């Protein structure tokens, strides 16, 4: 690939060798451009999505019939652990950070993130950390203690207990702890970067009150990242010390406490799940107004309910631990805080509905995923509120009812939100549309597939099926629902294949998109598709929450009709 020499104009003719960072590969390896880094995050995350998805299909294949023989117990434990770990740390978090990276500077009218090299660093640590984690398969010792690796199962033999027999003597738990440490470094760096960028690099006139909601949600998520991840780091470091250096933090026979792990982990783990969903909330809050041709209803309420969720998320962690024997007064406290956190979430859903009411809804690909998000996240929120009812939780925690909840909010929530974002911003990133027909096929396959896969799990939980069991006997009455669930999972797999096909075909021959294919409202659409390296020729001045709408429709511009 020859580089063009700098022209033979009247100026000068220059010819020289390319430096390493000018080669195609070198350009990607040394880039500090938020757009390139964003794309790298998203592409990498999708590779890991496939890995996690295949693991899910293996799980469902094993559980399709009673006494399955697809996976032996050790393999099953490894696969379900890696499914959770990969999907959470290597798919949902990176893809949402990737969107944030690409879109947030464009949305706020900045030229790049505040710390471009830190941005790149975050990506590379993610990549190598992810490879490290997956490399555990190569040495045959992938993590096998569940994605939250409770101690003392994750301890070595000595740490299990005096007469203990079976703990994690191999490297499995070490891969997990080190992998999550690396990914934590990446996330904390990214979080810092977003906070400074959003707080300091907004375009003139864009007060924090006029910032797009995706940026708001990314800001809250970034605070959650920097305050929650250290908890996981601490927990993992203590685990590594226990396993290798001879400390006894989680080992009861030497005076430690297994519950310490749970408290530390869930102090990270609960904010983590809000980290996984808040950017998706932001994406929905961007997509719905554009495709309903109305501004977002209750901007302030959505923004501040996001902040409220952020604060409250640090107060609810022990609702993952209702069965561990905390005193009733503590249970009551956490039940209360969990109830409180449901309120801002409900407010958001109502605001989204109000956005589409009295609108002019165009059912294009991003919109159908956004609407599907609302529908499915509602179910996840309802069964989550059910889990907050402590006595009921005693029966269904650690059963398939919880698996149903987490997948409704993670798949019906985060993943649908991610796909809404992909269909919405793909034309901006590549200059081409994704095919609308295939998007419809994918959506319906996914919607039906996910309900088939996860709705029966409510019933399985009610019928006594615990989580994380590698098989079940024939006579428990769980057979038909497990089979239904497997069919749904494979439908989702098919939908993902459709999506991949769509992406590849569209990259080759997709319909060309201009700079503003959806007639949108925010600044990222005021650039060519894909944007130039410098984003904006001149930095825009912002007078309302919808600067591009104002520019396109000056007679009815927001700044003329409303005061924000």
């Amino acid at each position: 690939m020859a580089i063009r020499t700098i022209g033979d104009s009247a100026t000068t003719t220059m010819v020289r060798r390319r430096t390493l960072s000018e080669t195609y590969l070198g350009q990607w390896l040394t880039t500090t451009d938020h757009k390139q880094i964003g794309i790298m995050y998203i592409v990498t995350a999708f590779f890991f999505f496939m890995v996690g998805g295949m693991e899910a299909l293996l799980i469902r294949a094993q559980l399709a019939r009673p006494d399955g023989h697809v996976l032996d117990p050790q393999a099953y434990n490894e696969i379900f652990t890696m499914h959770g770990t990969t999907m959470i740390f290597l798919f949902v978090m990176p893809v949402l950070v990737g969107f944030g990276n690409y879109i947030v500077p464009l949305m706020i009218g900045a030229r790049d993130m505040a710390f471009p090299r830190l941005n790149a660093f975050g990506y590379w640590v993610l990549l190598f950390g992810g490879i490290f984690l997956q490399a555990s398969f190569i040495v045959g010792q992938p993590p096998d203690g569940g994605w939250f690796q409770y101690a003392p199962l994750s301890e070595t033999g000595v740490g299990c207990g005096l007469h203990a027999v079976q703990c994690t003597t191999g490297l499995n738990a070490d891969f997990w702890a080190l992998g999550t440490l690396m990914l934590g470094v990446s996330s904390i760096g990214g979080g810092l970067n977003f906070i400074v960028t959003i707080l300091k690099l907004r375009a003139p006139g864009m007060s924090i009150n006029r910032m797009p909601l995706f940026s708001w949600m990314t800001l809250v998520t970034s605070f959650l990242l920097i305050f929650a991840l250290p908890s996981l780091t601490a927990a993992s470091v203590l685990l590594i010390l226990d396993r290798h250096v001879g400390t006894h933090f989680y080992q009861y026979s030497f005076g430690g406490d297994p519950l310490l792990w749970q408290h530390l982990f869930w102090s990270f783990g609960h904010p983590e799940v809000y980290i996984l969903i808040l950017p998706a909330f932001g994406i929905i809050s961007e997509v719905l107004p554009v495709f309903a041709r109305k501004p977002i209803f209750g901007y302030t309420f959505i923004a501040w309910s996001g902040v409220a969720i952020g604060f409250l998320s640090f107060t609810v962690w022990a609702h993952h631990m209702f069965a561990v024997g905390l005193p009733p007064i503590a249970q009551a406290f956490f039940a209360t805080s969990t109830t409180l956190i449901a309120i801002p979430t409900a407010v958001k859903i109502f605001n989204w509905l109000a956005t589409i009411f009295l609108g002019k809804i165009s059912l294009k690909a991003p919109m159908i995923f956004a609407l599907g998000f609302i529908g499915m996240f509602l179910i996840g929120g309802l069964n989550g509120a059910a889990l907050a009812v402590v006595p009921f939780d005693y029966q269904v925690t650690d059963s398939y009812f919880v698996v149903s909840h987490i997948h409704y909010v993670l798949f019906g929530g985060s993943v649908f939100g991610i796909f809404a974002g992909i269909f919405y911003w793909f034309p901006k990133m590549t200059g081409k549309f994704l095919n609308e027909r295939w998007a419809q096929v994918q959506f319906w396959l996914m919607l039906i597939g996910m309900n088939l896969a996860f709705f029966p799990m409510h019933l399985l939980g009610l019928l006594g099926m615990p989580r994380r069991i590698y098989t079940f006997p024939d006579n428990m009455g769980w057979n038909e629902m497990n089979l239904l669930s497997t069919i749904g999972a494979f439908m989702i797999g098919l939908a993902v294949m459709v999506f991949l096909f769509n992406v590849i075909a569209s990259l080759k021959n997709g319909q060309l998109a201009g700079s503003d294919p959806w007639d949108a409202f925010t600044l990222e659409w005021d650039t060519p598709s894909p944007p130039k390296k410098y984003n904006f020729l001149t930095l825009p001045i912002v007078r309302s929450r919808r600067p591009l709408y104002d520019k396109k429709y000056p007679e009815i511009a927001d700044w003329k009709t409303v005061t924000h």
Partner: protein
Amino acid sequence: MKKPVQLDAKREIVSQEQYEPQDQVEQQASQASEQSEMPEMSRSSQGPDASGTSQDVQGTEASKEESSSGEVESSQDIPAPQPPRAKKRKRKQEPVSEEEIMPRPSYWPLALAIALVIMLFGTIAQPIVMVVGAILVIGSIIGWSLERR
């Protein structure tokens, strides 16, 4: 220090656009600045006819690249055509090149990432790996800090 040619995502030489019609560009810009009232601040007005941020860069507009603190190009002091790599422009009056305002590529993030992963891997491998990793981490941090941007 070598300044690489700037390539955008489509592998076009962005910096060439800037330089190629340099004479014409600056003349047109100077004419424009005489004709219309360019605000003191570099930011274009917010009205519907704001300088075409939404369209692909045209030759004329290429010269209007301004940083957030740069100002309008003057009509007078057009320097003689310079080799594309002349960096030291007079900031006050010249359009700012992309190389000056965009973050430059760097391989230190990659280096530090690799070093960190090696160091952490060393906790379960031989201790020497951890020591080597730690040295690489320190080296990368120093290199990162000392990099001139």
